């Protein structure tokens, strides 16, 4: 569960029905938040539809990412099952100690993501292999009696059997569970139950049922699969006993274990002594690392033009940092994305324009006056206006109609911009991702972020990258260019002028053979075969050959150099024209969410610091003017606890309560505006005393001080340093 994950505590998970209620609330919230009640609902519906899409996409992603490992797991299970059936009396089988087939499923430390995996696993099992798949969690069986685990197992299995409808009417079977109820939880009972069930299955085998698709043996006696979701958290003794018991019955009962392991397979050996682990026949299944996982998710959700909603560089930075530094949880990443989405659509009224193209245009058409005013207020739009000719400007500032048209145009532009942007981004990364020392980063997301920040071509990383590209050996260069072209050719929808492509195409295809050619000059042999296998399609091939002829005739380097420079310059101008950061785009505020502080506050809370700010600068929270003080001092009219806190900061490890009280009294009486010379100034009366005591106890509750035995009427201070 999430609470046992690296990301524990970052999120609050509400029960479902509550959440549904919430969403309704959100809608109201959206509406009320608007000063005029227009578009609130639209925004909400857009937001929701977007979120649905994202969610479904991620789930699909999850599935196809897990597909490989799960399939191999299923294979393994099926194999074991069949081997159970043909308990052949051949020699080796007789001689061998019978072991429990066990799958060690290593899923990585991002525990919150595991649930989904296990869910799909058990679904797969249910539909394709066996109805008897039980998954148990540590905290269900953490109880002292080791019967606990067995009990869970039994009641799950048999409970399932009772509720299974196709046997309901079968009297012979409905008796079975009842009789089991009497028998206390021993694996013997399980055996009887299993026999009964499998017999019935044999009877109903020929009746059309959902199992008939399966091969016969699996149908007749399906294995009992026990899934330990969080292996590390289990009590070793419980596990050991369980495994030992199972191993005694493995002959009658086709048992299969699946260990969900978060760390590494070694834990099995750490938790189980050899005497127990020698009863298992462990097969290892390693899931792909969660960083790859994240890469794919970002690739599908962020680096695509199909979602109108975008994250600014900083926001993305925050999310990725949380992922990399704190938890490896993709699920939490997506949740962060969701939060950003909600926040964007809630806070930005103009986000009504942030949707599918034609909707956006429609909405743009029926923008109200205030919205247009807001639109005009947008800094990006202002910049745009200033860039226009005077009469144009006048029009823009006066006529709403015109603004709407312009707005539509701009929206179209921004869409176009996105298309090209991602296309070129991928191309560029395809070039630079293989460079030595990754000047522009290894992953595409890094490149993306730096592009979002500033003009990439002004950075010297970019410079060095281009330099490296120039210095590349010929064949390497050709290879990278090939990738480039390949990526380019995937983006047919991108609006890069076709002729430009063709032009580049030619350059490229001229380039390759030269590379080859130079090579063979140096080597003295003609690696045509290499050349051939490098080329894929015929079109390339003939061009290549042609070029080779041409270049053979003229043995000089210059054409290659020339071509190379041309190509790179071409790429460069591509980059310059298409990879400009979105801030420069007018109306980018519509679809870019940029308040990273908000996200950080909510996703990566710092309770301690906030407490301390509250205590040291009360003004920060209760916006009361006369609490405003310069740093370090605290006004005497601040809440008692603040004063007490401030005073205790000056003390040493042990604080004399009486001195503390005195100091407090003086400060407070300063607030009462008594004149400092009067003798009752700073006197301690019952009221002050009581308030002081209250404040101190509050401090103690917050864990800043605690009472100590070392010295009478002293308290020990627990925190150090300014913070």
């Amino acid at each position, binding site marked *: 569960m999430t609470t046992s994950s690296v990301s524990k505590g970052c999120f609050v998970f509400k029960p479902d029905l509550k959440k549904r209620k919430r969403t309704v609330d959100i809608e109201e919230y959206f509406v009320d938040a608007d000063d005029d009640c227009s578009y609130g609902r639209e925004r909400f519906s857009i937001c929701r539809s977007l979120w649905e899409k994202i969610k479904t996409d991620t789930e699909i992603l999850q599935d196809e990412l897990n597909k490989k490992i799960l399939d191999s797991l299923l294979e393994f299970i099926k194999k074991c099952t069949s081997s159970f059936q043909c308990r052949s009396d051949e020699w080796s089988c007789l001689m061998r100690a019978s072991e429990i087939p066990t799958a060690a499923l290593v899923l990585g430390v991002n525990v919150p993501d595991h649930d989904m995996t296990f869910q799909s696993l058990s679904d797969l099992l249910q539909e394709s292999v066996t109805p008897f798949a039980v998954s148990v969690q540590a905290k269900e069986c953490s109880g002292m009696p080791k019967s606990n685990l067995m009990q869970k197992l039994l009641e799950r299995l048999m409970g399932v059997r009772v509720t299974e409808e196709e046997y309901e009417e079968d009297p012979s079977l409905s008796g079975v569970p009842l009789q089991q109820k009497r028998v206390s939880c021993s694996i013997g009972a399980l055996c009887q139950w299993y026999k009964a069930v499998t017999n019935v299955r044999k009877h109903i085998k020929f009746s059309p049922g959902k199992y008939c698709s399966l091969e016969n043996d699996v149908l007749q006696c399906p294995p009992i699969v026990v899934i330990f979701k969080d292996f590390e958290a289990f*009590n*070793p*003794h419980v596990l050991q006993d369980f495994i030992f018991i199972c191993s005694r019955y493995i002959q009658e009962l086709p048992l299969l274990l699946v260990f969900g392991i978060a760390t590494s397979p070694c834990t099995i*050996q*750490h938790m189980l*002594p*050899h*005497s127990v682990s020698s009863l298992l026949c462990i097969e290892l299944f390693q899931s792909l690392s969660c960083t790859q996982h994240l890469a794919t998710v970002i690739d599908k959700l962020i680096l695509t033009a199909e979602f109108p909603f975008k994250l600014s560089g900083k926001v993305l930075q925050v999310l990725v940092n949380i992922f990399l530094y704190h938890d490896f949880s993709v699920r939490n990443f997506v949740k962060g994305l969701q939060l950003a989405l909600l926040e964007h659509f809630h806070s930005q009224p103009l986000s009504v324009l942030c949707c599918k193209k034609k909707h956006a245009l429609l909405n743009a058409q029926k923008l109200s006056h205030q919205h247009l005013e807001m639109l005009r207020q947008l800094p990006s739009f202002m910049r745009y206006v200033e860039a226009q000719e005077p009469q144009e400007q006048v029009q823009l500032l006066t006529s709403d109609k015109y603004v709407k048209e312009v707005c539509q145009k701009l929206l179209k532009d921004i869409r176009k911009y996105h298309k090209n942007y991602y296309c070129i981004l991928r191309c560029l990364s395809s070039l630079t991702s293989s460079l030595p020392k990754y000047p522009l980063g290894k992953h595409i997301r890094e490149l993306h972020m730096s592009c979002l920040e500033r003009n990439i071509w002004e950075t010297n990383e970019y410079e060095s990258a281009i330099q490296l590209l120039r210095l590349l050996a010929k064949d390497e260069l050709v290879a990278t260019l090939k990738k480039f072209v390949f990526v380019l050719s995937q983006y047919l929808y991108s609006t890069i002028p076709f002729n430009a492509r063709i032009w580049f195409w030619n350059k490229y295809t001229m380039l390759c053979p030269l590379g080859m050619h130079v090579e063979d000059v140096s080597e003295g042999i003609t690696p045509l075969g290499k050349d051939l296998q490098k080329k894929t399609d015929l079109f390339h091939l003939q061009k290549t050959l042609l070029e080779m002829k041409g270049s053979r005739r003229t043995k000089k380097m210059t054409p290659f150099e020339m071509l190379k420079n041309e190509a790179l310059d071409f790429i460069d101008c591509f980059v310059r024209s298409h990879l400009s950061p979105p801030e420069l785009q007018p109306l980018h505020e519509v679809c870019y969410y940029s308040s990273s502080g908000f996200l950080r506050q909510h996703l990566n809370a710092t309770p301690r610091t906030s407490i301390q700010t509250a205590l040291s600068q009360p003004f920060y929270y209760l916006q009361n003017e006369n609490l405003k003080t310069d740093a370090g001092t605290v006004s005497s009219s601040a809440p008692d606890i603040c004063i007490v806190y401030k005073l205790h900061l000056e003390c040493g490890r042990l604080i004399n309560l009486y001195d503390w009280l005195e100091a407090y009294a003086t400060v407070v009486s300063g607030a009462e505006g008594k004149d400092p010379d009067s003798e009752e100034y700073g006197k301690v009366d019952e009221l002050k005393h009581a308030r002081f005591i209250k404040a101190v106890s509050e401090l103690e509750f917050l864990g800043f001080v605690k009472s100590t035995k070392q010295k009478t009427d002293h308290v020990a201070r627990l925190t150090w340093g300014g913070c």
Partner: protein
Amino acid sequence: MDFVSQPLPVSVNYMMSKHKSGANCSAAGECVSEVQRILRERFCHQRLPDKPMGLESQYKHLLELLRRTAVHGESNSVLIVGPRGAGKTMLLSCALRELLDLQEVKKNVLLVQLSGLLQTDDRIALREITRQLHLENVVGDRVFGSFAENLVFLLEALKKGDKSSSRPVFFILEEFDLFAHHKNQTLLYNLLDVSQSAQTPVTVVGLTCRLDVLELLEKRVKSRFSHRQIHLLSSLSFCQYRDAFRSKLSLPDDFPDSKFSQDWNVSILKLCEDKSVDEILRKHFNSSTDFRSLHLLLLLAVSRVSVSNPTLRAADILEASRMSNADTKANILHGLSILELCLIIAMKHLNDTYEGEPFNFQMVHNEFKKFIQRKSHSIHNFEQPVVLKAFEHLLQLELIRPVDAGVCKVQREYQLMCLMLDQTQFRPQWRARSGQLMQEKSDEMWQGDENTKGMTLQNSATLSTLACLSLA
């Protein structure tokens, strides 16, 4: 000495008997199985002897007490204290047997037998009492405020038609000390209380092996106990012991085949004179005078009697005593593999160097590696996991014990252990083992095969290591 000569005459005159009575093997077989039956009943089922041996005074005392209750209806309470197997139960049941022979007592007295092992708390005990007094139906499903009420009700229910006299009840509490652990000793309190007040004649007889049992009792309970104790500190002399030995083995006169029984008894007499048997008996006598251990010994001996050797020979007794006091730990140690034994030696070294401080696997392995280096050629170097597996096996055999049990959190190789063996168990062991190795070595040499030569070398080397180590 005369192992060989001694059994001879017996067998001879057995032969003669066979010859003249023409009794064939089957007859002998029947006799033997009859002997087995009788003796087993004595030794296994603790069949009551005709009179308790060596406990006459205590017997008289107890009997007197019980009779007073049974006949004159005096309440009482008494503790029978004695070491395990001293015959407390036997004593009591003998007394009861004699008492219940009297007709009027028999139909009058009620008997309630509880055992601390069974009635682990007072609720169960009470149910048991009700059951043994056959009052379930009387009680029915009536609920009682307190334990005392319940008990009193039970006793009331026992009263006969005329309220004057009521039937005496014997409460017999085996493992008396365990009852003292029940929640505020309610049962004991009430029973003793009843035995104090003269309402119903009740005698509480407690049997325990704890001399300090009175310390366990709360003050209010103790004050209600008549401090009568019968101690079974057996003051048995060796001759008595030997007589007991003889009488326990000898067959009764009502044995079907008188001839056989005579022979048997004669042979038993001979046996008692035998020196080896005598010294074995002395050994046992010195270790423990109680009869149960003697029974164990005799059963082992008797179980060896069969048609093929129809009499009890000294050899049987010897064998039996060998079996009954074998060193169990040494036996277990004998089964260890060489690697495991090396580990134990390493642990012993650690114990010696660090004066018995606990150690963990890392240390042991470290020590072990030192040995290997010292005798690099001898034991070929095992991987750490292999050694760990051996270590775990030792742990499983509880030859080593984790210092803080139940802490499974610590990495296994760092869990602190302490060795559960001492020098005495250890020394002979490795000697035996080295001898065994020699044995193995020799027979491998004999079937001189290439590979086994390698093995042999290794073994001999190991042997030498063992030697040097445990002499070091």
